[in-house]
């Protein structure tokens, strides 16, 4: 497995500035195909569980938190592994989280203002 901090491959010129050296922390160590397949299997199992609990007649108070939990886990797995935020520079994470947190905050306020959760 390639070392995330390895910048000394046989063709690399040590005099050439690397992205890591420039402070970006762009390590670019991406997972192997086997790891991707493992994540995809987990995603498939979680989706099957989502559909399973939808058909199981459980109370709405239990169903909705469970569905949100599964959705958040799937979201995180795709973003961290398939989109490589776990491995890439934190700058990308910051940019994406800025938009995501902005959207979640803004629209939660909107929905609370219009009492969307009261009914």
């Amino acid at each position, binding site marked *: 497995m390639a070392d995330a901090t390895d910048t000394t491959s046989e063709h690399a010129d040590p005099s050439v500035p*690397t992205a890591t050296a420039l402070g970006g922390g*762009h390590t670019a160590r991406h997972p*192997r*195909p086997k790891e991707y397949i493992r994540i995809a299997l987990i995603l498939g199992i979680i*989706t099957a569980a989502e559909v399973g609990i*939808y058909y199981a007649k459980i109370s709405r108070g239990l169903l909705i938190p469970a569905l949100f939990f599964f959705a958040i886990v*799937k979201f995180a797995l*795709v973003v961290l592994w398939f989109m490589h935020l776990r491995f890439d520079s934190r700058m990308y994470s910051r940019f994406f989280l800025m938009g*995501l947190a902005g959207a979640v905050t803004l629209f939660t306020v909107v929905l609370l203002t219009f009492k969307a959760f009261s009914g």
Partner: protein
Amino acid sequence: MASDIAQPAGTHGAQIQHPVTSTGLPNMKLAMWLFLASDCLLFGALISTYVLYRGSSIVGPYPSDVFDIGYTSVSSFVLLASSLTMVLALSAIQRGDQARMRIWLLATAMLGMTFVGGQVYEFTTFFHHDHLSLTTNLFGTTFYVLTGFHGTHVAIGILMLLSVFGLSLGGRITQDKAETVELIGLYWHFVDIVWIIIFTVVYLIPTGK
């Protein structure tokens, strides 16, 4: 030209080259992440609108009358599978394996087309069989706009995948251009995570009506 190229190594031994930038990161990738952050706001607005008006329709059909969860679940599996083939395409080109990258890119595009085809079939069934149009009720309006925007994103992703596939046939997508595949991959996975939310919020959470 080597003097103005940054070469972060370690991607399965691949050399991803990009010009030195003030952030130390490739500008195109940073721009893609910024675009995706802005797209969060677009889909946030559409999902919020759906949530805001859910259960507010005064005439049918209602979600429980039209949704076929089994069918949509298969569509979800298809889109998840396309995310896997997309990362496998990226992994292949990072190893310099162009043939395998083409296979996985084509597989991703085919899975995307299956998803969009499924959505077209779903819309057609809702429209002709259940008489749910964009103007029938609040559910029809918010549902078609949200899922229609998502479907359009998938369709644009398919065009990008096929474009890269075409470029690769001409030998223009080589190991040092792996970032091109990565950028399209980021867009594709974003479309996938949006569907994860839509599938939960729109299809699986019951409205009570």
